[in-house]
């Protein structure tokens, strides 16, 4: 019931609204009750409302407002990218993106593969049922 993910310097967050939608950013400083100074390796450091951020479990070890170079080093050391891509949340987003980018032909091949998989599962189930009977 208590909060587990806190807004703190070094907290990695996902942007969920606006131009930077879908990017992972690091909270680098807190401006006031509503806004944070936020930074990522491929964007200009800027302020963002907390309402635009979804906090993740990942935290990196940085001092308040580090230089870009230090920030990038700290992110490499904490291996943010791999931790994110292996987390269930990160994997879900990757799958969603892949599904959205499917071609019409890809969707057809996917349908064939699903049918094939269902057929194999049903065969196995029938075998097991027969043995149990």
């Amino acid at each position, binding site marked *: 019931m208590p909060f587990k993910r806190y807004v703190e310097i070094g907290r990695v967050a996902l942007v969920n609204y606006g131009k930077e939608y879908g990017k992972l950013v690091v909270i680098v400083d807190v401006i006031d009750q509503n806004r944070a100074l936020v930074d990522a390796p491929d964007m200009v450091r800027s302020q963002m409302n907390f309402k635009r951020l979804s906090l993740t479990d990942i935290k990196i070890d940085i001092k308040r407002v580090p230089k870009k170079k230090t920030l990038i080093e700290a992110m490499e050391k904490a291996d943010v990218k791999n931790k994110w891509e292996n987390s269930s949340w990160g994997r879900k987003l990757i799958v969603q993106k892949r599904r*959205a*980018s*499917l*071609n*019409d*032909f890809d969707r*057809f*091949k996917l349908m*064939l593969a699903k049918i094939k998989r269902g057929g194999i599962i049903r065969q196995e189930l029938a075998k097991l049922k027969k043995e149990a009977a």
Partner: protein
Amino acid sequence: MYHKRGLWAIKAKNGGVFPKHDPKPKPAAPVEKPPKFYPADDVKKPLLNKRKPKPTKLRASITPGTVLIILAGRFKGKRVVFLKQLSSGLLLVTGPFKINGVPLRRVNQSYVIATSTKVDVSGINVDKFDDKYFAKQAEKKKKKGEGEFFESEKEEKNVLPQEKKDDQKTVDASLIKSIEGVPDLKAYLGARFSLKAGMKPHELVF
């Protein structure tokens, strides 16, 4: 204005005088006889219109070999291979016939979704197909004899001339070979497209 147009520079280049070209000698115009007849009233002639319409601009996503989805008509939902754009602007398209029953046919660009799947059509010669190839044959005039009314209904239904069937076969032969080279493509072209639950056309990538 004089300075802005640089007339002073042109004059200076020409030695203080504005360059003047004498009119070219025109060939003598043929002698026109005065007309024998003047109409009583002056009738206004409409202005001449020399505009020639250009063929419809082909969407950049449609190139020879693209798989298209036909959206309207007898073959709606069928996935079909694009061959070339005819001079009227319509797209020449083929099933191939053996795969999905769509013959060599013309289709309008507006009734088509272009997918990003491409088939190799480099070996096919489509130069002989143009809009005249698809024109309707002029019907013979039916005799108006009464006794022949009932019989004339049983006249030959439009049988496709053997020539068109052969054209279809030659175009499809090399197409089918390149289609069978790609796994599942034959089944893909044989299946119809339809929107299922949860598919949002504006979010789909084709």
